[in-house]
């Protein structure tokens, strides 16, 4: 049983997780009216996908994941109290993606290294230092705490913060085939809406 669970999780890691940037791009199409967060759709899609006990029978993980995402979007639409005309109109126009995303879009190592180093450089100073010592130099959290004069729990907080920043960065990295304007991200639009 435990092995079965581990196999299922390994399948999820291998086939579904690398689709994140494409799923996110796909999810954005359902969220043009700003009522639903595309990241939430992807988050829910992952939760439903990893639950699949019959994963061995899935021949096309990309098509499988996009189908789940579409269902998640439909459910979110149904949950709404007020349906806007544009939301429904938009929804009807969205075709399943013509070419199912594949797991082969992992970044080239060089490019990925650059992306990761760039992400670390963007972290606040102390967080960046903690993260650098942990991931580049492989120091233990205890060693880092002593070196920087911090508590272990503070070191953990910095590591969590850095990891969260990087995992989102990796997840938003647009696959080569997708052409979505990254500048118009959800959070930017939401802030804009909130100000109105």
């Amino acid at each position, binding site marked *: 049983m435990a092995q079965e669970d581990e196999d299922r999780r390994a399948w999820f890691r291998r086939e579904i997780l690398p689709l*994140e940037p494409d799923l996110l791009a796909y999810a954005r199409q359902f969220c043009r009216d700003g009522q639903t967060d595309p990241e939430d759709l992807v988050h829910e899609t992952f939760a439903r996908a990893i639950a699949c006990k019959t994963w061995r029978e899935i021949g096309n993980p990309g098509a499988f994941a996009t189908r789940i995402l579409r269902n998640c979007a439909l459910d979110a639409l149904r949950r709404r109290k007020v349906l806007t005309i544009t939301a429904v109109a938009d929804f009807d126009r969205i075709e399943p993606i013509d070419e199912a995303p594949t797991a082969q879009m992992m970044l080239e190592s060089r490019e990925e290294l650059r992306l990761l180093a760039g992400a670390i450089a963007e972290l606040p100073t102390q967080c960046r230092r903690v993260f650098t010592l942990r991931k580049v130099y492989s120091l233990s959290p205890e060693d880092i705490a002593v070196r920087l004069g911090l508590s272990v729990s503070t070191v953990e907080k910095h590591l969590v913060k850095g990891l969260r920043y990087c995992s989102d960065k990796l997840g938003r990295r647009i696959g080569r085939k997708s052409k979505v304007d990254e500048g118009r991200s959800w959070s930017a639009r939401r802030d804009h809406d909130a100000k109105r």
Partner: protein
Amino acid sequence: MERETGSRREAVRQAAALWVVRLDDPSCSAADRAAFEAWRDDSHEHEAAYEREAAAWARLERLRALRPGMERPDRDLLAERRPSVARTPWARGMAAAAAIALVVAGTMTFDGGAAYATAIGERRVVVLSDNSRIELNTDSKVVVRYRKGVREVKLIRGEAVFEAARDARPFVIKAAHAVMEADGSTEMAVRLRSDGAAVTVKRGAVDLDPAPTERKDDLRLTAGVTAIYSSAGSRSRAVSDSEIDRALAWRQGAIALNGQSLEQAVAEFNRYNRQQIRIADPSISGLRLAGYFQTTEPNSFVSAVTSAFPVRAAAGSDGAIRLTRRVVSEKTG
């Protein structure tokens, strides 16, 4: 309401990230692991979120490739702008060493690049249009090609020091199949070897891709690191400032030896002089030398060697200076 889902998502991802960090901590206990499994069993949402953060954590392992070969960890290694390295007395002395000719005009090559070369024993400083500098050592050649969007320099022969000026365009150095991209205001030396090359970074940092055709990681070389790459692979190590200054003593017209073998020292002198030196007796090639010599004066080097070691110098039939072991009877007689 949608905001709530967003913050709920973030809370789950935060919790997942904390588990990833904890489980990777060497001091993680069995109780921690049990608590984690209980948390993961709560929901598939937790399970999936954990896998997502764990995958990112694993991908971040790549960052270890950026670690220079230094013993002391640099917490600011990945900072946006690195604090500038203190200039050594040798670096300050460089202004005085500008006695070498400034070369501005090069030879145009057929494809629009400009070639600059030196003969044996010659040194040259080339100042490029963006104020980047190239200092060519003996018997060396570079081709400079500044195009739209990229400053490209190819080391064809020998050895050179590159000082990249700050510019919006990347400064790219090609040498023996490898491609290097230097940060603005980087000072680095590249010396071609029979296979591959040696790269030493004196100031700034450079990304070295030893085999661009292969899917291998770049090497990030920072100040105080030297790397050697060849078709067999690449390795890097930390070097002290004085070691770098000795390696670059040629910029002052000198060869600085610090425990090199006679064989290495002779090979070094032969780079700079038409008057070649040959070791005719393999039993003396392992002698260790230290000292500071003018590149253009092989004779003073030879006399230093013959006075300090049981070595005899004689003119060979090919005009070269032949070094042999001096037998004791010769010394007394």
